[in-house]
């Protein structure tokens, strides 16, 4: 059985907090452990921050969209912005010695660390990032 709920959010930090809180609640409802709930919420927070800051660049005319879908074996969260698009292959490795002491650039790395699968798709205009956590691995 699949359940899906989606939100259209303003490009603000309040919306980022909303996305994070909702992710935590959905993850708890699915039955993930407290650690997983916290990690999923953080991954969603990081993706929402990217949507607001880098995608929509805090443009009040632009929205971002968060969908939480629960299936029998996974929680699938999709976050879509209305920005210029993103090429994930161009994101620097934050663990590389030359990047280790940088003050930013760790968001997508943390998303990948905390989720089982992470997919990017250009949706013109905008970027869609899909975060998947499998229930069987919780």
């Amino acid at each position, binding site marked *: 059985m699949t359940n899906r709920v989606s939100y259209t959010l303003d490009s603000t*930090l309040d919306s*980022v907090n909303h996305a994070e809180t909702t992710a935590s609640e959905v993850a708890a409802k699915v039955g993930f452990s407290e650690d997983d709930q*916290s990690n999923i919420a*953080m991954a969603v*927070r*990081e993706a929402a*921050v990217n949507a607001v*800051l880098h995608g929509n660049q805090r443009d009040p005319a632009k929205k971002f969209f968060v969908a939480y879908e629960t299936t029998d074996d996974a929680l699938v969260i999709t976050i879509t912005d209305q920005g210029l698009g993103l090429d994930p292959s161009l994101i620097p490795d*934050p*663990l590389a010695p030359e990047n*280790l*002491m*940088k*003050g*930013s*650039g*760790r*968001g997508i*790395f*943390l998303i990948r*660390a905390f989720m089982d699968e992470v997919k990017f798709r250009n949706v013109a205009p905008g970027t869609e990032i899909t975060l998947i956590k499998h229930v069987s691995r919780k």
Partner: protein
Amino acid sequence: MTMKASNRQVGGVNVVDMSGRITLGEGSVVLREAVKDLLAKGQKKILLNLGDVTYIDSSGIGELVSAFTSVRNQGGELKLLNLTKKVHDLLQITKLYTVFDIKDDEAAAIQSFK
């Protein structure tokens, strides 16, 4: 939960007791301002007590790195005290655990400053 930072001096070291969330926006700004204020006063021995920091995101991690670099560039030392498991794990996966000088005993941490 709102981020708070309060400062006390112990044996010539500035201990900054932080509580709440160090995240993009308010939390990161509180950390940045706390360190900036100390440096402006010439206080370069800084021990950040993160024992009551419940959460930190990539922006907060970046702010810790920037604070560490700012203090070091001015010839000072910034160390971390009392990491929660969550913050400890985050610093490990971002390979920053060995960059920071991390302590779990305040008295020993204060003694360790030059």
